[in-house]
């Protein structure tokens, strides 16, 4: 286990290094003088001079990267030019909202995707299988911002069951929080449920035709026990790994979902930052999502290592 962990950690270091180069490099895409671009409409000479000094814009590129990465390592992602607050502080403030949304979306996706995948595999080539496949295609092809608008039309405008937008902290009003978050969580989880359904279906089909499942059936075990206890347990291993890896994609999806439902999370932060030309915030958000993705990737590998005895022997 120790050697495996060390090897994986050694692989992460260069990946993180290139992620940092990529994100730092984004600033070089700004057309013209970066100080002018960063200043936006505030183009007084004092502001330009301040930005030039703050971001070391007169120094060579490798030096600027050095200053930037040294700050990042200390947890300093720079300062928001617009709100005059540290980017780390802004992100930490918004992160819990997004984490709640992404976790709820993941739970909804697991519930729908795994259930549909299992039914589809067990009832292969029946109308239930076809229905589950149609659902998967729908999920993969529907833009989530359109689905959000359709759900608002139905549940908020016509039926009046749920609020169209807004956010309440769960510590203030749990019921209000859940009723505000359920629609966005469904919208965010919808596409992922489709991906999970396809993977669960193919993993289940493979497992259901394996020898040990045939043995379990030959022993006269109840079909329910065979499917849920013997087959699903093994089929879920790759699905859970995929789930961990897709959490990063879910964080990406929050950008649109939070914009439609006006949820003050991480996704809305990056959109507002883009329009305010608050580039340090954009860089900070990208860096954080990439780091979360890499960390989840590592966790998924460790989980896979722990549950798969063949890897331990290797």
């Amino acid at each position: 286990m120790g050697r495996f962990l060390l090897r994986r950690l050694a692989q992460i270091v260069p990946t993180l290094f290139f992620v940092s180069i990529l994100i730092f490099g984004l600033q070089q895409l700004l057309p013209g003088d970066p100080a002018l671009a960063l200043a936006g409409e505030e183009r007084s000479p004092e502001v330009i001079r301040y930005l030039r000094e703050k971001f070391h814009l007169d120094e060579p590129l490798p030096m600027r990267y050095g200053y930037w990465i040294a700050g990042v390592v200390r947890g300093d992602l720079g300062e928001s030019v617009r709100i005059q607050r540290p980017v780390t502080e802004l992100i930490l403030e918004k992160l819990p909202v997004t984490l709640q949304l992404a976790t709820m979306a993941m739970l909804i996706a697991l519930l729908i995707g795994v259930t549909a995948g299992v039914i589809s595999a067990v009832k292969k080539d029946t109308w239930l299988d076809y229905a589950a496949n149609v659902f998967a295609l729908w999920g993969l092809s529907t833009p989530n911002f359109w689905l959000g608008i359709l759900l608002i039309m139905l549940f908020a405008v016509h039926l009046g069951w749920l609020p169209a937008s807004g956010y309440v902290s769960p510590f203030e009003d749990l019921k209000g929080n859940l009723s505000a978050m359920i629609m966005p969580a469904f919208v965010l989880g919808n596409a992922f449920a489709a991906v999970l359904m396809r993977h669960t279906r193919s993993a289940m089909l493979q497992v259901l035709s394996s020898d040990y499942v045939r043995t379990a059936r030959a022993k006269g075990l109840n079909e329910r026990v065979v499917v849920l206890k013997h087959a699903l347990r093994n089929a879920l291993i790759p699905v859970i790994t995929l789930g961990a890896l897709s959490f990063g994609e879910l964080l990406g999806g929050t950008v649109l979902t939070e914009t439609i439902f006006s949820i003050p999370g991480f996704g809305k932060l990056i959109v507002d930052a883009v329009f305010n030309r608050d580039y340090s915030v954009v860089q900070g958000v990208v860096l954080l999502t990439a780091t979360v993705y890499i960390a989840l990737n590592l966790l998924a590998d460790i989980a896979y290592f722990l549950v798969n005895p063949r890897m331990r022997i290797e």
Partner: protein
Amino acid sequence: MNRLLKRKSAAFGVFVVAFFVLLALVAPWLAPHDPLATSWSAVRAAPSASYWFGADELGRDVLSRIVWGTRASLLAGVVSVTIAVSLGVPIGMLAGYVGGWTDVLISRITDAMLACPFLILAIALAAFLGPSLTNAMIAIGISATPVFIRLTRAQVLAAKAEEYVEAARALGNPHLRIALRHILPNIVAPLIVQATLAIAAAVIAEASLSFLGLGQQPPAPSWGSMLNTAKNYIDQAPWMAIWPGLSIFLLVLSFNLLGDGLRDALDPRHR
């Protein structure tokens, strides 16, 4: 092609994609109104004989804007995937064929790009490049590149071990010739499938960027920006949201069906 069209879902995909391509080509003749012409008497007009799909908040014909918007969506899908393929395939071939440190370096850079969620990377790139349809296409193209690098690399690694490549090498063919004349034609099938599915993802990505105001700029019509305006009039003019969303859904669904059909038709294991 016959094998592809035998599958009903793939045939549906081909038909709908062809329909949208035709729509984009004949937009100037087909659109009943000027997509940019505003009319104060038709502000948020419900669907009627003169405005089949209704009118938007400035009295512009929704149908005409959908027809013209097809151009932005298809163009974005095809151009961004062309960028991703033109960058990803040569780099992936280089990594897979040369191996060693070149491979290690390219693979780590690819890992780094894949660590940034596709949409967040596209938004960040589009934000730094500046909002426009061209920049959105570049941003989506670059964000989709690592998938092609990884796929090409894996395919080249598998092909390199095949006997026909060994034979080509034994005959003294130069490396470039082996890569381009012997390996590339044999790995093209999975790349075509991936490219078709990537167009579907790129159409959604362009609509997402336009929805956020980072793609096609107003007043030029695009399905994503139409939805962005429509969200402010959900209760008064639902038709403003229904048609552009349905168009994105249909086009993306068709490319997904086409991609699935191509995979089944081109992959011998699926035959």
